[in-house]
C-alpha cells in the first residue's frame, strides 16, 4: 500500500511540473491558436537564469532563503521578457499567415534559443544547488516524500488558484477570455488585443519559469536540452486535458503524471513513454477535444 502511495505522490509531483508548463501552452493556444513550440525553451531559460543568479549570489555568500526568492524572481522576470520578445519577433508578423508557417517559425525559435543558451553558456550538465531546505517536520516521512516535492505541490496549487482568480475575476482576465472567444469582436468592443496577447505570453512564461526553478532544484541538474523534452510532455498534457482550457491543462498534466508513474511502477519503465502516447490516442478517440475540451459545433 505504501508503494502505491509513493507512486501516487511521484505522479503528482511530475504532474505538477507538467502543469506549470502546460498552462503556458494552453493559454497561448486559447488566444492565438498557435502551438508555441519554443515554450519549453522559456522554461529552460528560467532555470538557467535562476542558476546564474544562484551562482553569483552564492559566491557573495548570501543567505539561502534570500537566494531562492531572488533567483525565482529573476527567473520569472527574464522568462517573461523572453516570452514577450519571442511573441513580437516570431509570432506577431505571422498572425495572418497560415498556421503551419507560424508553427515552423516557432520551431525555428526553439532551435535558436536552445543553441543560444548552449553557446552562451555550456553544453555540460550544470548542477543546481538544492535551494529548498529540508524541513525538520518532514523527517519522519522523508523516505516517502521529500521537502522539495512538498514545495512543488504547494507552489503549483497556489499558482493555479492565482491564475484562475486572474482569469475569472479581473478585467484583464475578462479581456483574455473575450479575445480567446472571438478576436475580431473583442477588437470591435475596444479590447487592446495586442496588449492582451502580450500579457498572455508573459503570464504563461512566468508560470513556466517557476516550473523551471522548482524542477531544477528538485532534480539537481540542468542543461540546455531539458526544455525540449519537458515541452513535448507538457504539450501532450495540455492536449489531453483539452487545449485552451486551464483546468484542462492541469487535469491533463496530472493524468499524464500518474499514468507514467503507475505504469513505470507496476509494469515497466522501458515503455512508459509509449504507454503515455497510446493512452493519449485512446482518450482522444473517445473524446476528440480532450477530456475537458469543449467540442465546438461548427456553423456552416
Amino acid at each position: 500500500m505504501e508503494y502505491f502511495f509513493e507512486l501516487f505522490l511521484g505522479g503528482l509531483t511530475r504532474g505538477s511540473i507538467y502543469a506549470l508548463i502546460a498552462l503556458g501552452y494552453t493559454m497561448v493556444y486559447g488566444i492565438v491558436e498557435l502551438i508555441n513550440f519554443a515554450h519549453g525553451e522559456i522554461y529552460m531559460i528560467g532555470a538557467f537564469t535562476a542558476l546564474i543568479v544562484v551562482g553569483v549570489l552564492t559566491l557573495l555568500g548570501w543567505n539561502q532563503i534570500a537566494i531562492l526568492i531572488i533567483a525565482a524572481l529573476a527567473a520569472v522576470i527574464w522568462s517573461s521578457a523572453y516570452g514577450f520578445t519571442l511573441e513580437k519577433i516570431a509570432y506577431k508578423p505571422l498572425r495572418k499567415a497560415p498556421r503551419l508557417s507560424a508553427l515552423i517559425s516557432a520551431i525555428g525559435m526553439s532551435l535558436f534559443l536552445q543553441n543560444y543558451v548552449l553557446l552562451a553558456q555550456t553544453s555540460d550538465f550544470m548542477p543546481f544547488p538544492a535551494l529548498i531546505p529540508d524541513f525538520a517536520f518532514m523527517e519522519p516521512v522523508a523516505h516517502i516524500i521529500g521537502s522539495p516535492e512538498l514545495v512543488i505541490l504547494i507552489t503549483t496549487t497556489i499558482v493555479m488558484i492565482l491564475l484562475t482568480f486572474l482569469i475569472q475575476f479581473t478585467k484583464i482576465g475578462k479581456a483574455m477570455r473575450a479575445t480567446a472567444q472571438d478576436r475580431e469582436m473583442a477588437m470591435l468592443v475596444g479590447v487592446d488585443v495586442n496588449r492582451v496577447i502580450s500579457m498572455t505570453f508573459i503570464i504563461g512564461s512566468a508560470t513556466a519559469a517557476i516550473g523551471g526553478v522548482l524542477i531544477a532544484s528538485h532534480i539537481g541538474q540542468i542543461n540546455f536540452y531539458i526544455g525540449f523534452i519537458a515541452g513535448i510532455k507538457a504539450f501532450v498534457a495540455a492536449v489531453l486535458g483539452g487545449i485552451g482550457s486551464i483546468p484542462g491543462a492541469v487535469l491533463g498534466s496530472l493524468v499524464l503524471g500518474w499514468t507514467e508513474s503507475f505504469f513505470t511502477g507496476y509494469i515497466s519503465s522501458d515503455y512508459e513513454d509509449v504507454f503515455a502516447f497510446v493512452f493519449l490516442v485512446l482518450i482522444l478517440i473517445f473524446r476528440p477535444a480532450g477530456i475537458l475540451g469543449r467540442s465546438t459545433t461548427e456553423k456552416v
Partner: protein
Amino acid sequence: MLSNELKKSFLVSLWFMFLTFPIMVIRVNTVENIVEWRWANLLLVGIGSFFVSALWRYMIRRKEEGVQKSESGIDRVTLSQRLLKDRRFTIPALIVTCIVTLVFPFVFSIYQTNIMITAMIYILLGLGLNIVVGVAGLLDLGYAAFYCVGAYSYALLNYHFGLGFWTVLAIGAGLAAMFGIILGFPVLRLRGDYLAIVTLGFGEIIRLIMENWNEFSFGPSGIANIPRPGFFGMEMNIEQATIYIYFLMIGLALFTIFVVNRLQNSRIGRAWIALREDEVACQAMGIDKRKTKLMAFSLGATWAGFAGVVFAAKTTFINPASFTLWESINILCVVVLGGMGSIVGVIVGAFILVLLPEYLRFLSEYRILVYGAVLVVMMVFRPGGIVETTRRTYQYKEIEPEGALLSPTSK
C-alpha cells in the same frame, strides 16, 4: 522619420541588452564554482541589435506594403511564379539541370555525390509529406515513423530472410502504406492540433518500440552490414556503388515527381484540396471524408517507405536515433519552407535543407543557431514558402467593352 527610427532602434537595443544580460554576460560554472563576467558581449548585443532591429523594421514595412498591394486587387505575381510560367526559362533550365545531374558524380567527389543522394531522399520524403500536409491539409508531425518502417523492413527482411534490395523496395513501401492506414483510423475524427499531437505520438511510439524491443529490432545498437543494391550481381566498390545509388535515386525521384503530379491533378487530388480548404463543405459535396483521409495518409506514407529502404541501403547501418521527432520536423520544414502543395517548391526546399547545414559547416558550432534563425526569418518574410503555390482561380473582372465577362487568371 530618421530620428524616430534611430530612437526606436536605440530603445530596442537597450531592451536586448537587458534581456540577454544574464545569459550572455554572466557565465556560471557550478561545477567549478566560478563566475565569469563578459562585458564585451553586452556591447556586442547592444550594437548588433541596434542595426538588426533597424533592418528588421525596414523589411517588415516593405512586406506590409506588398501585402497591401495584393489586398487592393493588384495582381502580385512573385518572381518564382513568373519564372515557372515562362517557357523561355523553363526549357533551358530543364536542359541544364539534366546535363548537370548526369555529369555530377563524375566531376565531383564521392562526398558531394553522397550529399546529393541525401537531398534526393529528402525530395522523396518531402513529396510524400506534401501529399498529407500540403495538399490534404492534415498536419502530420510523425512522418518519420513511416521512414523508419521502410528502413527497418529492409534491414530485418534482409537479415532474417536474405531478401534483396529490389524485392524489399516494393514490400517496404507497402508496409509503410499499411502503417499509414493504421495511423489514419484513430485520427479520422480529429482536427487541427489534436491531429498533430496524435501523429507526433505515433511517430514516437514507433521509434520507442524499435528502441526497446531488442528481440525484434536489435534496439539502440541498430542493425549493421545492410547490403547495398546490386546491379545484376556485380561486385562494386564504394565509389561505384555510390554512383549506382545516385542514378537509382534520380530514377526514383523522377518516378515520384511524375506520380505525385498526376495524383494532384486527379479526382483524389482535388478531393484532398477540397478537404484542406473546408472539411464540412467537402463532406457536403459528397466526398467520402474517411476514404480521402486514409488515402492521403497511406499514399503519403508509401514514399517514406521507399525513402527508408534506400536510406538503409545507402548508410548500411540504421538505428532508431535516425528517426526521432526532429527528423519529422526536418521533413515538415522541407515542405513548408519550399512551398506547401508545390512540387518544385518541395524540391527546392529539400536541396536547401540538406545543403545548407553541409555548407554551413564552416560556421561549426553556430550552425544550428543560424539554421533556426533562417527558419524564423523565412517564415516571417515568406510565409507561403519559397515557391508559393499557383492555383487556378477564376477572378471576376469588370465588364470589358469587348464583352469578356470572366477571364481565367492564375493567382
